[in-house]
């Protein structure tokens, strides 16, 4: 068909359509070539674990009047880095960049409340679930308090780090006491300080601590985290009961149970025990130890130094 046979409208669109077709074809070829190269030589590695500028003050200068948005970029990077590392299947997870990323975020935006509070949780969480660096968590929260001296929550969080991760109940109590002295701090921080000093490490006081945090959380994520900790404490109570049953079994029969079925047959259990998330508990037949399964969302449970209830 010649050009003259085409309708005027089609004739008018013909060059545009030809350009569009050429573009689609060329982009398609480029994609195919890229895929062919990746199949032959492997995919390029994303340079996620690189932090080109580590100095917050330098970035602060470079950012001119765009510090806040750059802080957001670093915050997103910190979350991606933490989440990516936590979820990675690697046996040698490294959280080396977590603190520098959070430090830069909070230098660029010293008011970034969540970066201090979440960041401290990510840093303090024991390895491999987190960086296992409660010292850096404390440093980050102290930096936050220097920037925002009205934020009693940061001092409370430092108390938590000392209580939960470092098991230094004297220091925890003193931070709760300091937090209670900040204008606007809730009344219960003073009594929390006293309870921590007298009953630190007691699981009931731990539960009280997380309940208070849950009730005063200014964010859904902090609330969910407190709920998760409270569920872990429930699981620890259940594990104590199961260990008691195992001990009873060993006393009665002079040997350790080989499975939950043995305990059921001995009338010490009714059915296979499940943790609060519905995952079966694990029984080690050689030692008689009871733990949450590695597949459980509650794994790993926090250290319970005194094992009291």
């Amino acid at each position, binding site marked *: 068909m010649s050009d003259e046979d085409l309708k005027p409208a089609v004739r008018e669109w013909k060059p545009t359509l030809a350009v569009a077709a050429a573009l689609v074809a060329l982009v398609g070829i480029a994609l195919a070539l890229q895929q062919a190269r990746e199949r032959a030589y492997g995919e390029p590695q994303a340079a996620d674990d690189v932090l080109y500028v580590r100095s917050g003050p330098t970035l602060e200068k470079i950012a001119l*009047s*765009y510090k806040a*948005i750059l802080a*957001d970029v670093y915050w*997103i990077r910190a979350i991606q880095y933490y989440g990516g590392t936590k979820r990675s299947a690697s046996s040698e997870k490294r959280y080396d960049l977590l603190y520098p990323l959070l430090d830069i975020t909070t230098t660029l935006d010293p008011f970034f*409340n*969540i970066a201090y509070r979440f960041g401290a949780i990510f840093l303090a969480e024991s390895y491999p679930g987190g960086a296992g660096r409660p010292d850096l968590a404390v440093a980050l929260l102290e930096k936050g308090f220097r920037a925002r001296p009205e934020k009693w929550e940061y001092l409370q969080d430092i108390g938590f780090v000392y209580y939960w991760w470092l098991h230094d109940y004297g220091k925890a109590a003193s931070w709760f006491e300091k937090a209670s002295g900040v204008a606007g701090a809730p009344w219960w921080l003073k009594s929390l300080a006293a309870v921590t000093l007298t009953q630190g490490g007691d699981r009931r006081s731990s539960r009280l601590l997380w309940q208070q945090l849950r009730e005063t959380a200014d964010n859904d994520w902090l*609330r969910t985290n407190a709920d998760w900790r409270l569920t872990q404490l429930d699981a620890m109570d259940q594990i104590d009961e199961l260990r008691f049953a195992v001990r009873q079994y060993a006393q009665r029969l002079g040997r350790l149970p080989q499975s939950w079925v043995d305990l059921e047959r001995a009338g010490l259990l009714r059915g296979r025990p499940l943790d609060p998330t519905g995952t079966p508990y694990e029984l080690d037949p050689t030692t008689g130890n009871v733990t949450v399964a590695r597949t459980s969302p509650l794994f790993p449970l926090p250290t319970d130094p005194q094992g009291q209830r």
Partner: protein
Amino acid sequence: MSVIFPVAVNVFRESVRDKVLYNLVFFAVLLIAASYLLSQLTAGQDVKIIKDLGLAASSLFGLFIAVFIGIGLVWKEVERRSIYSLLSKPLRRRDFILGKYLGLVFTLLVNLAIMATALYLVLAYYAWTSPESLSRAWEAPAMDPALLEAFALIFVELMLVTAIALFFSTFSSPLLSAALTFGLFGIGHFNADLKHFESVVASPVAAWVARVLYYLLPNLAPFDVKSQVVHGQPVAAGYLLLTSAYGLVYIGALLVAAAAIFSRRDFK
């Protein structure tokens, strides 16, 4: 005033004709795309980041308009030789400079006003769709009127940048004017270091020169209250007034200098 107004209107019309306001489309797309993506990435900080993004984009887009249009305000008329016909009319050179300046400032004002409206619309959507448990955690309400304080200072800062660009464009090429304006914009954000230069140099003369430069160069850092506003920190009315007044006085000085240079320029 009657001669300044047509010049200003013409600058605005020309900006619209040059599709300067197309940047608003990019702004809208950026905000909408960011709103969608951020909820997946930011651990509940969507509203804070949308505010940061909206304010930063308003400032950045405004900066590019101020610089790239500002440097061409005079140069284009000279290049097109339309300056001859303009100056042959009963139009004083200083009125021409002032008209050009006000026209671009009006363009920036329209641009910022539309961006502010778009940002508030996106934030209204967030306020409407977010459950109370989430909105309780916001440090400032989504539709916080205090955001206008940040927009106001961004506007004064852009007015100042426009004046700098126009000042340079009265005696240098567009490329050099752009480089000098961006340079001053950069210096303006960290010239506070110059004030305490004596702590890094031993020479009292160098320290004195640095201090003079500190007062002479535009200080743009105080115009940035974006972070305080987004976090719901109060910005004192006195601070806003003093900073704006500083900006306006500096603009006045730049326009006087620009008009003086332009008045002495020989177009033969």
